């Protein structure tokens, strides 16, 4: 694997499958154990550099690094010297001087992980940059799909039909998923109101449409995106109620899915908005599995980036 994981597009098919395989082996080797800890990254330092709040992603990375015995530092912008005006570059140089082997960065500016990677010697993992990318989320989604589809070590997602629904415009999850799922051989369709699809969507390696009911019966996987209320400062859709009616996955819509189809959501969910509670809690839903799989996948990424020669 390369030194950094910045974009889902950085991974070749073989590399992406290697991450999923490694995650699977790590998961089975820890299953049922009392001591869920491996000495693999003993003496390495992983810094979680979070400029945006994200408890879920941060604790997932933290747990992954700790289970591999790395030392973990959590750096949150709030209350740090960042709030006193320190630049990303100065923070990077501080981390470099402290000997961080890897920096996991979440930043509200798209592209910041690339900047960071050019300043420090350690590995950089993009844990979400602006509205751009979130590659480990895409990997854990792919891992969840592969398991639910009954495929195993060495397999891709060839022929799997994945429908991603909702706010594609602001979603780094959607972008990273489209890139990775294509690499793994899945067919991706984006469904959203026209106002929530980015300009230039025609050039993305996927199909897109506006009608959810039409897209559902064919899908093996339906991935619901969170409606990011905090970003809804413009009029992307008339009312929340109308959005829920046209693009929300309620029980009736879920009924039109194929029997084996699964429903995914990166969390946190707006129950009753993009997904109905009864669908979120149904056997089709993989929301809780995705969280558990996230730890295994992030362990795999840290092992592959840091396990080798320093």
């Amino acid at each position, binding site marked *: *694997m390369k030194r950094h994981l910045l974009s889902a597009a950085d991974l070749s098919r073989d590399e992406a499958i*290697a991450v999923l*395989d*490694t995650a699977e*082996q*790590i998961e*089975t*080797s820890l*299953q*049922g*154990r*009392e*001591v869920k*800890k*491996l*000495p*693999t990254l003993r003496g390495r330092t992983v810094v979680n550099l979070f400029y945006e709040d994200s408890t879920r992603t941060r604790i997932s990375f933290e747990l992954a690094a700790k289970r*591999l015995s790395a030392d973990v530092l959590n750096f949150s912008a709030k209350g740090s010297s960042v709030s006193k005006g320190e630049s990303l570059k100065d923070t990077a140089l501080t981390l470099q001087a402290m000997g961080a082997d890897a920096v996991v960065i979440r930043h509200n500016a798209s592209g910041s992980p690339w900047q960071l990677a050019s300043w420090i010697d350690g590995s950089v993992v993009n844990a979400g940059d602006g509205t751009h990318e979130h590659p480990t989320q895409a990997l854990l989604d792919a891992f969840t799909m592969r398991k639910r589809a009954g495929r195993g*070590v060495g397999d891709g997602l060839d022929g799997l039909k994945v429908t991603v629904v909702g706010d594609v415009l602001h979603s780094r999850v959607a972008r990273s998923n489209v890139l990775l799922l294509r690499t793994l051989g899945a067919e991706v369709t984006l469904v959203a109101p026209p106002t929530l699809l980015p300009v230039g969507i025609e050039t993305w390696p996927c199909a897109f449409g506006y009608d959810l009911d039409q897209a559902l019966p064919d899908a093996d996987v339906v991935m619901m995106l969170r409606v990011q209320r905090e970003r809804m400062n413009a009029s992307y859709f008339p009312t929340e109620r109308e959005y829920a009616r046209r693009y929300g996955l309620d029980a009736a819509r879920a009924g039109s899915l194929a029997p084996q189809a699964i429903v995914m959501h990166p969390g946190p969910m707006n129950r009753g908005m993009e997904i109905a509670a009864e669908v979120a809690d149904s056997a089709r839903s993989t929301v809780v599995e995705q969280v558990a799989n996230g730890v295994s996948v992030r362990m795999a990424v840290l*092992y*592959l980036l840091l*396990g*080798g*020669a*320093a």
Partner: protein
Amino acid sequence: MGTVPESADGGAGKTGRVILSADDISRVVDRISHQILEKTGGATDVVLVGIPTRGQQLAERIRSRIEAFSAQRLPIGVLDITLYRDDLRTRGVRPLEHSYEPEGGIDQKTVVLIDDVLYSGRTIRAALDALRDWGRPRAIQAAVLVDRGHRELPIRADYVGKNIPTARDEQIFVGISELDGVDGVVISSGQPDRHEVLAMLNGEGR
């Protein structure tokens, strides 16, 4: 068993020699199985743990021989020690193999670790660390097909198929029919070509 020169296209001056044939391996597996039964007093509360890749196949064979000799079916586990290696920083990452614990765990059991070649002892050391995370066995023993010497740690095997004094620059290649199509062990100077080694073993088998 004579010295077999490598084919013309395979690097100058390197030689390979078959040191265990398929029949030898079969006898060794039988002997180790008997020794395990004897040393552990009938193999009650014994579990076998193979170290991938070839240790896993050997563990399965030993289990089936012990079953044939004593009608006992021992629990078997597989332990990939990659994540416990102390040389990851210098050697780089490698793909992980599937690991699983023996049914019923290892607490209060006698664990027999099984590998193909014992060399520096670092693999067994890593396995000892890994087993500690699985539980607390009553005792841990080690069985290997070949002991080639050059230990870097104070570790020895309880069951050894064959002791083979080697030079450090020599290579040991273990062929296991489930994976390689043929059983046998070859020693060669320099880096052996896998196809040549297999051809050599196939020749020996005829």
